């Protein structure tokens, strides 16, 4: 059965474009231009994935509101923020509300498609029992590439898709310096230096929450980052 994707976006042109792209990939797409119509529609049926714009017409933070309500109804529903607001603060707020990814509208359609596909893959993988394939272990770190989850000292680390790909890219070849361009390619995103810096910062913070002595991601000044394995 085709997956249903809901797009809540006030800008009709963008909504149509994304809908067309998703349809082409074989998804069923519902478009909404405001919070209330979307909520009304979700009342009867929840989609499989929601793409939300933060800023919905006059409803400046309507996307955040919508995300909160959706999360309360369905804990597992994948939610992606796709917005023109690129500030760190907004990204942090969005992710804190339980969104699976926070993307700016700079992202290209193929990248977006890749992410959506990855999210669905992760959902599917979650349904299956844990297999041994697609596992990478580096000391305390273990990465499940199927489910796209990361564990540190056997505790799950809640990473977004972008963060997961970054950790994956670094940990795959420990000791190798990955420059920003390489990390960007791995994350299927067009990110600038500052965004990478803040992503890395967030990743470190999440590991620190589990293990305060975590220092496996090393900054190589002027070059990039590398994973240090004990």
């Amino acid at each position, binding site marked *: 059965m085709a997956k249903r994707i809901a797009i809540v976006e006030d*800008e009709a042109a*963008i909504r149509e*474009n994304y809908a067309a*792209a998703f349809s082409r990939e074989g998804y069923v797409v519902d478009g909404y231009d405001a919070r209330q119509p979307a909520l009304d529609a979700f009342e009867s049926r929840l989609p499989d994935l929601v793409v939300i714009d933060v800023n919905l017409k006059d409803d400046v933070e309507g996307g955040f509101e919508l995300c909160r309500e959706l999360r309360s109804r369905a804990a597992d529903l994948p939610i992606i923020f796709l917005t*023109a607001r690129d500030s760190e603060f907004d990204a942090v707020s969005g992710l804190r509300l339980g969104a699976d990814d926070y993307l700016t*509208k700079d992202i290209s*359609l193929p990248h977006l498609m890749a992410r959506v596909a990855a999210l669905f893959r992760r959902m599917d993988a979650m349904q299956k029992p844990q297999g041994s394939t697609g596992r990478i272990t580096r000391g305390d770190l273990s990465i499940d590439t199927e489910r796209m989850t990361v564990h540190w000292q056997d505790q799950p680390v809640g990473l977004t898709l972008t963060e997961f790909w970054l950790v994956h890219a670094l940990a795959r070849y420990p000791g190798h310096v990955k420059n920003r361009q390489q990390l960007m390619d791995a994350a299927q995103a067009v990110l600038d230096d500052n*965004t990478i810096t803040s992503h890395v910062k967030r990743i470190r913070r999440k590991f620190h929450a589990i293990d305060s002595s975590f220092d496996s991601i090393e900054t190589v*000044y*002027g070059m990039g980052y590398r994973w240090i394995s004990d």
Partner: protein
Amino acid sequence: MNLRRQLLLVSLLTLMLPWAGCEFIRETEIALRDGQRQMLADTARAIAGSMVQHSEEFPVRDKSYGTGDQLYVHRLESRPKIDGYFDDWTLPADSLRSIRGADGPIRFAVASYAQATYLYVEVMDRSVVYATPQSLLVDGASRFADRVTLASSSPPYLREAISFAAEAPGRIISYRQSAYGFEPEPTISAFWQDIPGGYRVEARIPSGLLGTHLGLSVQNTPNAQQAGTRSSSFTGRTPGRAMSNIEELDRIAALYVQSDTRLILTDFRGWRIGAAGELAPGGGAQSGGGLARRVYDLLVEQGREAAFAEPDPLGREQQPYVSAALEGRETGTWFRNASTGTAIVAVAAPVTVGDEVVGAVVLQRGTQAILSQRNEGLSRLINVTLLTTLVVAGALLGYATWLSRRIRALSIAAEDALETENLSSALPSALADDEIGDLSRSFSWVLQQLGEYNAYLRSLASKLSHELRTPLAIVTSSLENLEHEPLNEASHGYTARAREGADRLRRILSAMSEASRVEELMAHAEPEPFDMRAVLESTTAAYRDVYRNRLFGLVCKVDSAQSTGSPELLIQMLDKLVDNAVDFSEEGDTITLSLEEKDQELLVSVTNPGPELPERMRSQMFDSMVSVRSGEESRHLGLGLYVARLIAEGHGGRIAAENVDGGVRFTVAIPRHQGPLSRSDSVRNL
């Protein structure tokens, strides 16, 4: 010229006051003097009228001899010793009349005292030739000797002469020419004295021996064999009438004179024949004070020197106003004594008998009274106006100082506000009610506008990028969708180009919002300890990789540079500076990074060879959207250095650019130890 000097100059206009006052005083003095002269003229006319009764005392007009043939017989006040010296004559030295002699001037004077006539002669003679006793006996006075002859006649009687020649210097015997030849005259006493270059003769002659007409002649003989050259005080055969004060006229004149008045009577030729009275010496004139006098002297017309008012030493009054009177016109004039400031008013009136002018009355009067009045007025005027000038100048100076201090304070405050970008600070004089207050308020307003404009500029970039992002997303997503549609070859080209353009647009937008993201990052960054030297070493290596057509040098003057902060951000700052350095240098140039420590600060600098920075851009080049590049290079929005500045200031440091020899150096100073990263003031203002 500053305001103070200008107002000081204006205050000099008050110097017009003393000038105007002096002008007034001068006018007053002229009026007073004119009145005095009028009065004096009336008196002179009255005296002249009364002189008609005494017209018989005035010499008759006689034109049989010239004025030059006459000589004046002075009146002595004491009896001189006959010794060849003039200094016991009570006459000034310029009373000696001078005639031309063969070897130089001959100077002589004739005077009378107590029934005797005195003669003094000074002769320049290169060779004095004495007479021989024999020659004296032959002709009474040697023809071949130097001699002085006093000619005398009482027309119509024949002339006679008294001859003075010497056998030797000392007392000499004089010879009197009579109908019978020369005879020694024992009643005459004479003295011959040799002086360098000539000789002097002094003699006393009983008045009875002389007639009414007198003349002097001198014979100068080069040697005893030759006849000499004769020089005379008269030209004709007989001398002119000897002139002197007539006692009767002196007595009459004395009746008319008052204090500080001098009366002189002259004959028709101007010879003084009567005089009385003295002008007071100008001693009291000093009362006006030296300064007042000097100022006055600068301003008033100068009269003729008072010495010219004195009676003529040679006995003949030749002042123009006297001459005019002798021609029948009554005239007046005035003199000023330069040393005392006294003015002397003088008038001359003709004495006429019938239609004939027989003489003149010359009346002179000092003007002590006017002078003291004038001086008193003058000194008061000068004191008052000087004080006024000082007060006015002082007040203007003070006022100007105050004004210029306010204006300067205002301009300094305005410049300060511009410099520190604290554009909302209050300016001095803002509450003042005058034009400076207005100026201050306009300044404040302009600065405030500028501040708002700057803030607008700063936020413009991120706002613009934000607003443009959605339409750009529409464009890119449409293009990406379009690529999945069946397109012909040409259309593919167009979409590819459109994608390229959109991509470029996206990069520009992301550059534009970089500043605000850096600010956010700094707000959330946690300072961590790091070694600046290590950071520089690894980034320099990275730059060598990235910019392969530039050389990079690193000069570290400290071994380790432990600091706290955000190395990522600092690297980003270095990236901006190096990017800038690369843009402004040529291929193969060496870009030098350096690190040193100074006053607890780390100085990181990036130096590149290349064109110098224009002076006017120096202060603004770290502002948002300011680029020193000329138009074409469109990808530079002037945000790079602004971001660098944000990061430097976020670390509590500062950034500066300077021109060095053949290049440009950007220096960032960062304190070694610092607290949490702060957003700079300029950012907080947003």
